[in-house]
């Protein structure tokens, strides 16, 4: 009896889970980056592969438990003993693994191995407890150098710019929101001023940690305008859950207006 119940319970769990995944009850948001489809595709591939293993595993388990309860069966091992199992594991799982790694490496490479477009628009990102700040080079196209000792959030000097002496820094535009023109390659440089943080933009399919002491480049191209969230996914302290910024992907003209407005407020 217990066996039958177990089988039914396991079967139900399997069906419900499978339904939730197939019906996308909870699923990835719209994808707005050029490399995104590769990652989505990879996730779907994996859902398929892993899903089949999951269902097969649970179903066989349930079936055997269902069939072989009680003392009435003649004891015997499966034909061929463990060999077929091992062969199966090596062949099937092995091939799946190899396949996944190969396709997966393409998707991964698309994000990390392709050199950024030299024409990319460069934006500096400074993460700190518990906010992101973004820096545009301004008209001269040069970023001012950073002086950690000058960082003072009370005076809104989030990057530690020496605007009094550093010509390059004078026209740098520092904003609390990441606005970018649509369909333009973007090259972000991530640096953290205090502890570890992360840059997670679901719609861009990008997650990259900030590591204090390192400048980490991230490049992407957004394909849709709109306003999206960038959140922190690396535990950074009490305000972790509150650490976020908005990403607005704008039409080129809107972007220019926005940048002009920001420049006027510096």
């Amino acid at each position: 009896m217990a066996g039958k119940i177990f089988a039914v319970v396991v079967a139900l769990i399997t069906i419900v889970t499978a339904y939730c995944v197939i019906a996308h009850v909870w699923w990835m948001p719209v994808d707005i980056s050029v490399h995104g489809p590769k990652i989505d595709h990879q996730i779907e591939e994996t859902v398929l592969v892993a899903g089949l293993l999951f269902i097969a595993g649970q179903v066989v388990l349930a079936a055997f438990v269902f069939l072989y309860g009680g003392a009435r069966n003649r004891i015997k091992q499966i034909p061929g003993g463990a060999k077929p199992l091992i062969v199966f594991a090596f062949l099937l799982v092995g091939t799946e693994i190899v396949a996944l790694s190969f396709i997966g490496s393409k998707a991964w490479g698309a994000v990390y191995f392709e050199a950024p477009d030299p024409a990319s628009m460069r934006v500096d990102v400074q993460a700190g407890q518990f906010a992101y700040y973004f820096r545009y080079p301004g008209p001269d196209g040069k970023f001012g150098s950073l002086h950690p000792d000058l960082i003072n959030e009370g005076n809104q000097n989030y990057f530690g710019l020496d605007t009094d002496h550093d010509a390059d820094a004078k026209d740098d535009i520092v904003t609390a929101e990441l606005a970018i023109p649509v369909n333009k390659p973007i090259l972000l440089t991530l640096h953290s001023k205090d502890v570890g943080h992360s840059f997670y933009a679901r719609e861009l399919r990008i997650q990259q940690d900030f590591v204090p002491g390192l400048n980490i480049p991230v490049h992407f191209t957004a394909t849709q305008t709109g306003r999206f969230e960038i959140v922190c996914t690396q535990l950074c302290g009490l305000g972790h859950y509150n650490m976020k910024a908005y990403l607005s992907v704008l039409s080129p003209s809107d972007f220019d207006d926005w940048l002009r407005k920001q420049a006027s407020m510096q």
Partner: protein
Amino acid sequence: MFAATAEKNIFLGVKIMPATAAQAAVHHAPPQGFIRKYIFSVDHKVIGIQYLTMSLVAVFVGMALSWAMRIHLAWPDAHIPLLGWLSPSGAPGGLMTPEYYLSLMTMHGTIMAFFVLTAAPLAGFGNFILPIQVGAADMAFPRLNMSSFWVTLVGFILACATFFIPDGPPLSGWTAYAPLSAVGSVAGPGQGWGQNLWGLSIVCFCIASLLGALNFIVTTLDLRTKGMTLPRLPLSTWGWFIDAWVSLLAFAVLLPTCLLLVLDRLAGTSFFIPSGLVINDQLQPHSGGSPLLFQHLFWFFGHPEVYIIILPAFGIVSHIMPTFIRKPLVGGWKVITFAEVAVGTLSFVVWGHHMFVSGMSPFMAMVFSVPTLFITIPSVIAVLVWVFSLYHANIRFDTPLLFSLGFVSLFISGGIGGFFLAQPSTDSYLHATSFVVGHFHFTMGLSAIFATLAGFYYWFPKMFGRMMNEKLGKVHFWLSFVLVYCVFMTMHLTGFAGAVRRYSALVDDFMVPLIPANKFMTIAALLLGATQFIFLFNAIWSRFKGPKAPNNPWDATTLEWDTTSPPPFDNFGGRQITVYHGPMEYDGEASVMQTSPAESVAGT
């Protein structure tokens, strides 16, 4: 040659020199007095029970913490008076602050991972059962064994002490990533003395685990009785033996890591703290360290750690199943053991898959991804062995087996998540989402807990000489099994929507729609926790009121069932044990004790 002479000496000692024999008898006599017997006892059985008791306390503490966290996630404005009483600053008026949520989270992870999942299956059951299963009278180094427990307990007390210091426990998570964990109180509440105590607690735990592992290895190799060749070792002992090796190597790395962290915090070194950090507008004095170094060192321990947690579960389940399905596992001891060895070995070369998005070289990410995926092969082999051993079995659905089956189901479900997290490309979306939380709760958390519970129901009669209540046991299983899936499968699914973990409240626009799902998980988690009190009641009640247990209630074949329940001080009452068979001599109702000269009945 050594063995021969030793035997001769003993022979002489016993036969010809009555003085020595008498002396021997005296030495063999159990220690007198409550303290020596139950508190500072060198008896591996008492120590095993002490470990299990500590873990039982720890698991309920950890569970209470998770309750508080879940309630806060679903109802951020909830006032929990008890919390307000426990920490007036952390939860003024019972309303949890974000920092206190993170503190609870940190301690939940620390207590569960170390003092429950590492301590109970290996140190707890291992201590009680392993020496008996190999036919020894005690561990190889009984005093060392006692000290490992007491050092562990000191570690546990230090961990709990963090709740009672002004700033409360640290908030940097059980992974204690530097520099958040290294720069001190400027990084936030709890990062002062809370983090220091945490570090010391882990140092204690490392030392204890290393001593324990050493003891297990020597005991298994050295104290096996006549005829107990390696192939005849029970699979649980194999699990503990392999596990001991893994923890011997892994904790040996965590120990220096924690020491360096403590140096950074207290001595001003800069192993993990880079130059030019500005925290709260204060320029930090440190220079030159690397946060990634900490991550490498931590995960070099951290990944084997999850296998340290799961390997004894493998062993226990592989040991319990044949008893209740009345047939040997497919492939006998070899296949499953091979799988365990492979998993244990591979676990040392995959740590980088925790660091795909950490700024580590993307090439390294792919290098680490491949062995990570390949570790699924031995895992799949193990699962196939468990599942296909059920083919044409005579399954007896006693509680230990139900929990073993639950383990298999959970391990399958959890293992599947591994496919997503082992690939950099998919992990870069799912990393640090609740998908990960669901994944490791299935694989290392609840799989291990289910195996531990299976072992608990299975060995309880041997440990306390009384049977547990079967009905309550079954109720406990069914509720736990279903509720576990309700909680953690939902976590997997919401992970696809990018639900970020370690958030003390769901405030982001895309997180708000997930609040209903979180309410569901919270309710399920509360029920799941409540269910465990059935188990607690069952255990305590049966301990004193349960029906007396026979020596071998489950028709099992291994040595622990060939002695009284509970076993005498020297485990076999001075009998000389000789082993003639492997541990899986089952054929339907028929079975042959390892110690019986009768001929084998097992087909394979």
